[in-house]
């Protein structure tokens, strides 16, 4: 199916998320949609798949103008979307999920459906047990199930939103093979990503979005440098950062120096934009935790300045940082984050801004119930925190954070969590970013660092790289840096003093 988007506009308040976007995609093409976080990719895809309506513009399918009112409407017209967080029904069987969403007819014709399923799965080489429960599947397998379901429902255009999130390298190969096969069968595929590596390896053509505008198109052979220039508006080589923030600078470190008894981190400069995610990579104990705790105000800096949203907080303590909108989530949830023996209500009351001397337990309980629902914590307000699973403890910690934060600092935000929880937690964190919170996080998971960061700082025995654009990094490159190889020569690098 040929897809044509003509002059699509969409604004959210003051933000022009899509400003007159024109794309024409012939059938059988894998179209890459590239752009950094907040470039307008997701908005465009949501318009095409009926989740939101455009403010202006037209969508043509095979040359006919169409109006897409809802996702169900979209799939009737042949447009299916595969979400980053698989929208399936975990307590059900694979085959039941597969059958779901099929229009009309009370009689499902079990045998027929099963035959179709097996045939489709076989065609793509997906090894899915139709009788298995969905919650026993990996994210990659759930993607496969979703792909089959969309094909079976008659999709002729499929949108993939950051599909390589949270799946293994092996599953990525399977996914890409399946996508190529689909394209050969005449399916139109839109592949949304901010990973250059994936886009270059898969897509027949690429459009680049930046700040709501379509900046340019490219076809293979791709010139990485050119794509990066389009994405960020200037040429970026490893070690450079794009010119300033689109929004304002929320955190500015000026020649900050930190040390403890075994390590010294020399003059680090960093400007963090509102809504930005910065990953701190490195082997355990390379200085990244020290750095993070210093930025949280938990460790006094020994030199330089820390400026948060225009306030110089150098040398102030954690409580002052906290009052200025900084939050710190430690890696050891039960040791440092939560109080064992106290229940969720008590935690919520503790974490809330104190109002008055007496506690209104009823109000606290209601608020807790609200948070539990919002953050999908599996527990009740009366549950003590140690009775929750690790993933739910992490969700609880997120639920305890103040509504408005300037800066959120996390140590290993998803360590030990299953993929579902990981994706869920990152979605919640991204929501925060959209509201202007900047995030700095430490992780030893390279995929996580590359997947979720806008920029990356690599730590190696107390040395820090300048901020690196995550889009220009590969796991191999990052791995080298973490291991101390291939360090860029730069003024920001820790110099021996």
């Amino acid at each position: 199916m040929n897809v044509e988007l003509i002059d699509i506009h969409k604004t959210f308040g003051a933000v022009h998320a899509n400003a007159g976007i024109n794309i024409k995609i012939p059938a059988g093409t894998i179209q890459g949609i590239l752009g950094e976080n907040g470039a307008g990719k997701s908005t465009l895809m949501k318009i095409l798949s009926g989740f939101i309506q455009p403010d202006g513009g037209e969508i043509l399918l095979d040359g006919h103008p169409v109006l897409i009112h809802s996702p169900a409407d979209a799939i009737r017209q042949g447009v299916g979307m595969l979400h980053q967080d698989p929208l399936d029904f975990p307590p059900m069987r694979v085959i039941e999920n597969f059958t779901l969403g099929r229009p009309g007819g009370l009689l499902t014709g079990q045998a027929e459906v099963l035959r179709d399923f097996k045939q489709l799965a076989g065609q793509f080489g997906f090894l899915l047990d139709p009788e298995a429960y969905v919650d026993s599947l990996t994210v990659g397998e759930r993607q496969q199930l979703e792909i089959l379901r969309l094909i079976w429902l008659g999709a002729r255009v499929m949108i993939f939103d950051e599909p390589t999130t949270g799946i293994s390298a092996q599953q990525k190969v399977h996914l890409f093979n399946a996508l190529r096969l689909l394209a050969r069968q005449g399916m139109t595929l839109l592949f949304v990503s901010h990973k250059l590596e994936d886009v270059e390896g898969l897509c027949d053509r690429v459009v680049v979005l930046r700040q709501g505008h379509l900046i340019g198109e490219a076809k293979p052979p791709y010139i990485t440098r050119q794509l990066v220039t389009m994405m960020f508006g200037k040429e970026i080589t490893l070690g450079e950062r794009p010119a300033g923030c689109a929004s304002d600078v929320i955190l500015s470190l000026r020649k900050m120096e930190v040390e403890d008894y075994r390590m010294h981190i020399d003059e680090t400069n960093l400007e963090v934009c509102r809504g930005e995610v910065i990953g701190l990579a490195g082997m355990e104990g390379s200085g990244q935790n020290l750095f993070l705790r210093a930025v949280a105000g938990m460790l006094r800096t020994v030199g330089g300045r820390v400026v948060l949203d225009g306030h110089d907080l150098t040398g102030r303590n954690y409580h002052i940082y906290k009052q200025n909108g900084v939050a710190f989530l430690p890696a050891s949830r039960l040791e440092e984050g939560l109080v064992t023996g106290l229940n969720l209500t008590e935690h919520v009351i503790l974490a809330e801004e104190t109002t008055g001397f007496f506690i209104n337990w009823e109000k606290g309980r209601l608020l807790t119930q609200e948070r539990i629902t919002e953050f999908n914590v599996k527990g009740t307000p009366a549950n003590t925190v140690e009775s929750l699973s690790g993933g739910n403890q992490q969700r609880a910690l997120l639920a305890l954070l103040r509504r408005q934060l300037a800066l959120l600092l996390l140590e290993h935000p998803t360590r030990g969590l299953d993929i579902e929880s990981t994706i869920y937690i990152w979605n919640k964190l991204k929501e925060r970013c959209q509201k202007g919170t900047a995030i700095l996080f430490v992780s030893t998971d390279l995929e996580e660092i590359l997947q979720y960061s806008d920029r990356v700082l690599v730590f190696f025995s107390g040395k820090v790289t300048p901020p690196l654009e995550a889009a220009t990094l590969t796991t191999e490159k990052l791995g080298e840096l973490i291991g101390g190889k291939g360090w860029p020569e730069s003024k920001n690098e820790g110099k021996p003093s």
Partner: protein
Amino acid sequence: MKKNNWLNSGFQLGAVILALLFTSGVLLIAGAPPFQAYLYIIKGTFSSVANISNVLTAWAPLLLTTSGVLITFAAGLWNIGIEGQIMVGAVFTTGALRLLQNSPLSPGWILVIGFLAGALGGALWASLAGVLKTFGGVNEIFGGLGLNFVATAFALYLIIGPWKRPGIASTSGTLIFPDRLWLPTLPKVAFSPWALGLGILIVILVYFLLRGTQFGLRLKAVGRNAKAAFLMGVPTWQYSMFAFVLCGIFAGLAGAIQVTSVYHRLTPAISSGYGFLALMVAMLINYQAVWAAPVALFFAALNIGGIQLPIVLKLDSSLSGVLQGILVLFVLLVEGARQRLFKKR
């Protein structure tokens, strides 16, 4: 949940029975008839108005000290130093009364000032333990223990030194205050409703403080996980200090009661062990303030009832202490066993 409560009660009853059996064994070894001993304890408690009055008199300071340790336990602190805090409270009260007894102030005001002085003394001594803990890194158990010795030595010095009785210096205590400086009692008995009223007031206060206030919740958070409480924005060491000072105030008031309502002077044993006893009460009630009053009453009754024993059965009066200690031990033991038992499932 309901069923669990019954089961817990069953376990606790079992602990009490075990404690009685064990104490009986001790009594048999000492060559005394256990049943008779228990009977005498009960008799010593309820047989006369004077006995009941004595129990109530002992109850008041124990209520105060129990309230105090409930606060420090909530903050995760073992305030062993509470004995010294009672002592210094008593010293301050005595000092205030000595200073003012010949002043034109009315006795009522002198007593009020005496109580305030006691509270101040207890708070000062407790804050010393707090400072040692917070800024010196001295565990509050060791700091408290050390300060207890210092407090006792200090009181002893005053009793046989500057505050000695005219003519003779005796460790039995300072000169008895004139009875206008005694806390008013009911007619013909030693029991002062003022003292008990204060004790009950404080217990109720602590109950609500721990159950329904931001302060109480934050205190608990600090006690259970100071790091997490800190990250949640609770000023942790300040709260620890608060807990020490509050406990010290209650202990000091207990000391003031001992001076103005029980001994009417300063003696080296003025604390009567109510600090340690309070720790036992708090452990026995599993730190639940709601049980503080009845269990403190029970312990006060055991204390008074035991006084009879040396006279009638030629037993040492410390039998009550043995019974109290064993009771606490068995309750803790049974609680530990229960937890192990149910964790395995």
